[in-house]
């Protein structure tokens, strides 16, 4: 594992989501050695958890499959999952990086036969579905997981359940003695593509997220709509599993608000518009209301907004909803606010509310790392005077998939320039 030979001509890409995969592939396909590290047990990042992309309503796994295929046939890329950066020192053209590998408790002998999961009776919250369902503690993160290899949750270590998994495996792939390991890399440039986390909607306390079961976030909605999600693609209320008849989307839930996230996350308008199509496709009678400040459908994405507006079951109300209360008996939600167009007070009931929460960047949280400038929100700033470490994708600005890919492709060239300067 630790015998990774790299030189100051190599590029390290941190983060195996859409941006990181892209940066790694683009550099490798131009002939450069690349090491890609990803924190999760699989590559693909946030987009693997999306049901469809806007505006084409196509599955993200299609593009990922192409990217994984590119990766399979390219010896210039080596990648590590469950891997994080523990230390960076040096300067452009000559970095020493320490990578920390968390134990997977499953080694390369895994054939993905699934015997360990069959015998395992312990269940954990399913991180892939944002905890909306349970999964065996011996699990394949999801069907399209790349690399296709099981993971054992640390809770199985030292338990009889863990031993059962070990004994069930015919291939000697379960290794409960696996420990955290580190290894060092020498690289010439670093592309930071660690992506984003959804803003913690519970902070916007007047929306009751975390308290009211039928208030969910936009990322959870993606899982609900996905055939491989907790409900196998049925969009139902978490409280009682009922089909949705009247749903509200609250835009800028915490965003464009100096008390929470002052910036706009750029994608939430389109994401909600897209999610209205999920709902409408599934339930022809369902009413949808979108509460918004501005609808930000840039460039030809405007066409998608136009298309959704043509759906008479979708209503757009300009309003910043001020409060949500739950009817404890029914689980329904009462939304209060002011319609800024008519000045009228809004008092409307819904059976499910989706909060369009924003993106929080995963900056460089590594002790002693060379300083990379950030703005006050934590987004990395690529300073032309401080080259060598480049932020790409949503660590630089909240942005959609296509723009992340453009940016990551650019980041690959920046990294190559760092090497060319040697």
């Amino acid at each position, binding site marked *: 594992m630790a015998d990774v030979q790299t030189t100051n001509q190599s590029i390290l890409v941190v983060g195996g989501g859409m941006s990181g995969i892209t940066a790694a592939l*683009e550099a490798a*396909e*131009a*002939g450069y050695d690349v090491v890609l590290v990803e924190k999760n047990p699989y590559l693909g990042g946030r987009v693997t958890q999306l049901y469809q*992309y806007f*505006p*084409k*309503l*196509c*599955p993200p*796994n*299609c*593009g990922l*499959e*192409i990217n994984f*295929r*590119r990766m399979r*046939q*390219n010896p210039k890329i080596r990648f590590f999952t469950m891997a994080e950066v523990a230390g960076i020192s040096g300067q452009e053209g000559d970095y020493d990086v320490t990578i920390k590998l968390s134990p997977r408790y499953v080694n390369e*002998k895994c*054939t*993905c*036969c699934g015997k360990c999961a069959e015998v395992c009776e312990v269940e954990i919250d399913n991180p892939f579905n944002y905890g909306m369902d349970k999964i065996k503690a011996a699990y394949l993160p999801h*069907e*399209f997981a790349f690399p*296709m290899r099981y993971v054992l949750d640390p809770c199985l270590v030292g338990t009889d359940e863990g031993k059962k998994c070990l004994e069930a495996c*015919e*291939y*000697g792939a379960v290794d409960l003695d696996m420990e955290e390991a580190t290894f060092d890399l020498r690289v010439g440039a670093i592309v930071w593509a660690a992506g984003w986390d959804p803003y913690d909607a519970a902070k916007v306390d007047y929306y009751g997220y975390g308290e009211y079961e039928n208030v969910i976030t936009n990322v959870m909605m993606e899982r609900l709509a996905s055939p*491989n999600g907790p409900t*196998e693609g049925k969009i139902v209320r978490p409280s009682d599993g009922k089909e949705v008849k009247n749903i509200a989307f609250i835009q800028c839930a915490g965003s464009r608000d100096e008390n929470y996230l*002052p910036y*706009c996350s*750029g994608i939430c308008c389109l994401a909600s518009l897209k999610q209205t199509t999920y709902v409408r496709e599934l339930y022809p009678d369902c009413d949808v209301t979108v509460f918004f400040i*501005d609808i*930000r459908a*840039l*460039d*030809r994405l405007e*066409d998608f907004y136009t298309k959704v507006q043509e759906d008479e079951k979708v209503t757009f109300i*300009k309003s910043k909803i001020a409060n949500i209360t739950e009817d404890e008996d029914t689980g329904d939600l009462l939304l209060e606010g002011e319609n*800024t*167009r008519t000045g009228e007070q809004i008092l409307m009931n819904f059976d499910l509310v989706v909060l369009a929460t924003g993106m929080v960047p995963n900056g460089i949280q590594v002790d002693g790392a060379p300083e990379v400038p950030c703005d006050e*929100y934590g987004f990395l*700033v690529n300073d032309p005077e401080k080259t060598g470490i480049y932020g790409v994708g949503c660590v630089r*600005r*909240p*942005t959609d*998939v*296509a*723009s992340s*890919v*453009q940016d*990551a*492709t*650019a980041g*690959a*060239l*920046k990294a190559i*320039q760092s090497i060319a300067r040697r």
Partner: protein
Amino acid sequence: MDKKTAVYICTGCGIGDALDIEQLKEEGTEDFTIDITRDHPFLCGQEGVDLIKQDIEGEGINTVIIAACSHRVNYDLFNFGQGVIVQRVNLREQVAWSQPAGEEDTQMLAEDNLRIGCSQAKDTELPEPFKAEEEYSKDILVVGGGLAGMTAALETARAGYQAILVEREDRLGGFLGKMKKLITLPYKEVSEPGAEELIKAIEDEPKVKVYTSSTVEKISGGPGLYTVEIKSNGNGVSERVGAVVQATGWVPYDANKLGHLGYGKFKDVVTNVEMEEMAASGKITRPSDGSDAKNVLFIQCAGSRDPEHLPYCSSACCLVSMKQAGYVKEQNPEAVNYILYKDVRTVGQAEDFYRKAQNDGNIFIRGEAANVGEEGGKLFVEADDELLGERVKIEDLDLVVLAVGMVPASKPDTTPRIKAPADAEDADEDGMIEVVPDSGFFANSALNLDYRQGPELPTLKYGFPDSHFICFPYETRRTGVYSAGCIRRPMETAKAIDDAVGAAMKAIQCTEATAEGKAVHPRAGDTTYPEFNMQRCTQCKRCTEECPFGAINEDEEANPLPNPTRCRRCGVCMGACPERIISFKNYSVGMIGNMIKSVHVPEEDEEKPRVLCLICENDALPAVDMAGIKRMKWSPYVRFIPMRCLGSMNLVWIADSLSRGIDGILLLGCRHGDDYQCHFIKGSELAETRLSKVSETLDRLALESERVKFVEVGITDYHKIPAIIDEFMETIDEVGPNPYKGW
């Protein structure tokens, strides 16, 4: 190469429990010359892999058939270097995990799968990468010397590659050179545009060669081998380059079409571009009398987001108007700016600049302009104020600025017409037809590619030569030609810069891959390429017309002239060719035909139908794998044969299959139509079109048309796979067995 072939059957993961392995070894390989046949309980373990390696080293095995799991897993373990052909046969996801163990039908399926694999391995040759006779160039041509073009050229040079920058005007700079200030990341304050610095950096950079007052007259050849003819200040110059970045930018929407907003009627109604130029040249004044402009109203989306004009949003105009409002205030702190908008679209951190514009006292009114007029020498604007819910009249205005949108420089003023093909329905009396945007003959002249499918990049519906793909924004329709900046879609400065750097990356990568004979995206690294057996060509033109990337030109006698470096290796030409003269070393009409023939078709009285399923290997095939991983069950009578793209499907396979007694043929391919998902553009659509023409064959054989069916399947549709197959099997049951069995 002289093949020495070994078959390795893995009996792990339930395969050994589901099948009679000894029988499989015998039945599955008996039609082929196999030197070694082995099985192993854990083939992907160290011992299993070593077993194979020992045979390669000790026995001289050079063709390895691995009958085990899907090719999507353990690809790295079963890679034995460039000299060894590896053929995977799926016995796990598609057999042991999706069929009942120990049944005759399961066994027959496994045997057929192994035969198909043995047949494929037999016909596979090691690829020999294409190598042109001429020397390859890795220089990059950048067309357009605005912000995106200058950035692309400079960043190319900084990565160590030579850039050639061609600009039509007599100086570099484009719109950037006309700006007073710039608003870009981090969007706190305006900054200097920096055009002069950028131009100087380019002049000081020895790896950028600049041609101003120049146009590209012709680009011939293909990636790595382009010859560019440039007309520079009236003289002809020639350059050789490896790839091209098109950054020819945008033009403002023609405000003369916005008479309803007072343009052309009142001198003091100007566009945002005119406003910028006025500010950059000194003072902001009223064009009517030259006096200072104090009260200014900006009409946002002037002609944008408007089906009558530009239906799309131009992305940058909100920020631009806020920036220009700042100029007015800077000139006169007492000045008042009104910004009349539909939605304020300041995404990301640009929200900070919106907040600043609000804090600076600019008045934002949400609504649409209803009327622009003049009273007492001053302008007024009537608007429907959405927040007040009534019509407001803003008076005493010195200047009204129309925030007009961006039109790609590629978009023609009038849609060009060309001679209609013989079967066209919309042709006029002269036999002419409008060119669709999705054609190389649509866009304004910029590249003048010497391509049979037209001189320019095909565009999307508004004339932007952008990629159609979300995950692959640089996936253009012409290999080695990448668009960047506002030619591709309307975008603000920060994005145009990123985009230009990205396009430079792709261009460089293309030259590197091409020089090694490798394909670029999406079959990156593929070293096969189509070879044409020209003696049998009938000049039918199907390959030249159907190639999604315009790779094939034509000579004077209408013979196809392939340009292998333009090729993306999809095989659409191979599918199109009625004479079957186009082949790849490891993918050909004959090879697939032999694979189909290797399927054993039981006699009619055995009541075991056989269905052939031709399947897209990128989307539908992984979906089938997933269905297997989920242990879903489906009919054991289906035989899957993966395709590089369904567009490579040749009708001869259908005819041959049916005449051999195969009962039905199912095609699983990507969604087509406006939101097509085929990464070879029209592959699945072409397959379906070809299929519609198969009725002739069916009629000739007196067979029912229901025997052949196309179904759109996405990669995440795995839960639908069993139902799709079962439904088709029901149809086959209804129409009954193919009468040609046993012929």
